[in-house]
């Protein structure tokens, strides 16, 4: 899979992180999910916790998301959090 995910992590006050990634893993109300490229469109409510973004350059970023959700469509992943740090 040559394609990458375009990931945005945003809070109400600013865009926390954006860039290309290989994988995003998060925990929704139903359980842990990992999002890889070409994932089906998804809207999920996140439980408070850590969202991990594996960057295309091999780096890994952890975000503490509180009161957020994740939306996936056309290889675009948006992680919205009421507070992120």
């Amino acid at each position, binding site marked *: 899979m040559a394609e990458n995910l375009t990931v945005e992590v945003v809070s109400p006050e600013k865009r926390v992180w954006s860039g290309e990634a290989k994988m995003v893993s998060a925990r*929704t109300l139903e359980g842990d999910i990992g999002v890889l490229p070409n994932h089906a469109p998804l*809207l999920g409510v996140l439980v408070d916790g850590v969202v991990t973004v594996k960057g295309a350059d091999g780096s890994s970023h952890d975000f503490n998301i509180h009161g957020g959700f994740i939306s996936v*469509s056309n290889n675009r992943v948006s992680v919205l959090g009421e507070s992120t740090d």
Partner: protein
Amino acid sequence: MGAQLRVYRRRMRSVKATKKITKAMELISASRIVKAQQRVAASSPYANELTRAVTAVASFSSTNHPLTTPHESPRRAAVLIITADRGMAGAYSNAAIKEGDQLITTLRERGLATEAYLVGRKAVNYYRFRNRAIAGSWTGFSDNPTYAHAKEVSDLLIQAFVADSSAVANGVDELHIVYTQFKSMITQTPEARRMLPLEVVESTAPAGLLPMYEFEPNAGEVLNSLLPRYVEARVFNAMLQSAASEHAARRRAMKSATDNADELIKSLTRLANAARQAEITQEISEIVGGADALASASAGSE
């Protein structure tokens, strides 16, 4: 120095002092507009994503969520009015209050009772002075709102909205918001919008078909947790735009005050000059008259 001249000089000094203050306020506001605009821009990715997501859920699921379905016989509506804490901003606060009054009148014509929720000291004072009921008020952050403030406001509004209007005294069936939209540095217009039940009109998301989403855990749950966020984001955006508008209105008001002071100083200078000239003329004619009288008196005694 003559009395007239002294009065003019005193007035000029006071106008000059005022001018310095208004000039300073103008410059401060000018720098704050930029900051406020940046905050509006910084909050838009979140707001756009939320709007997109809410539109997706609301249009793809057939869930009858209380936040999206209009009440059959609405009894009461909440009106949130966002104004400034401080004055010196021209008609900014008044324009928003007037827009709110108009909205309240239309709502009353539809037979709804209204509950006023106020942000900003100006609106609170206006309502207090007229002895109108206030359902909730928040002051102290109008020029620099944070998300926590928006959350505080939205929590109370959502609580009132979710409560049954026939059973609970402060329950409402509709939620309206009045804020000042920041269109440009020169144009800011007060706007009244219905926030709930939802009308997803201003979708800034790119047009085109939305993908068929999978919802996790299910559409109803997603909507449940999305909509409060959506209201918060809307309130936050309204607050940020109002803050930017407030600064712009203040800058404009202070600019015209500074211009007026300039004008006033100019005309006072003219008057003071004329008074000084008149004083000199009078003094000379007095001296000449005195010398004449002395000369004629001494001529007669010889």
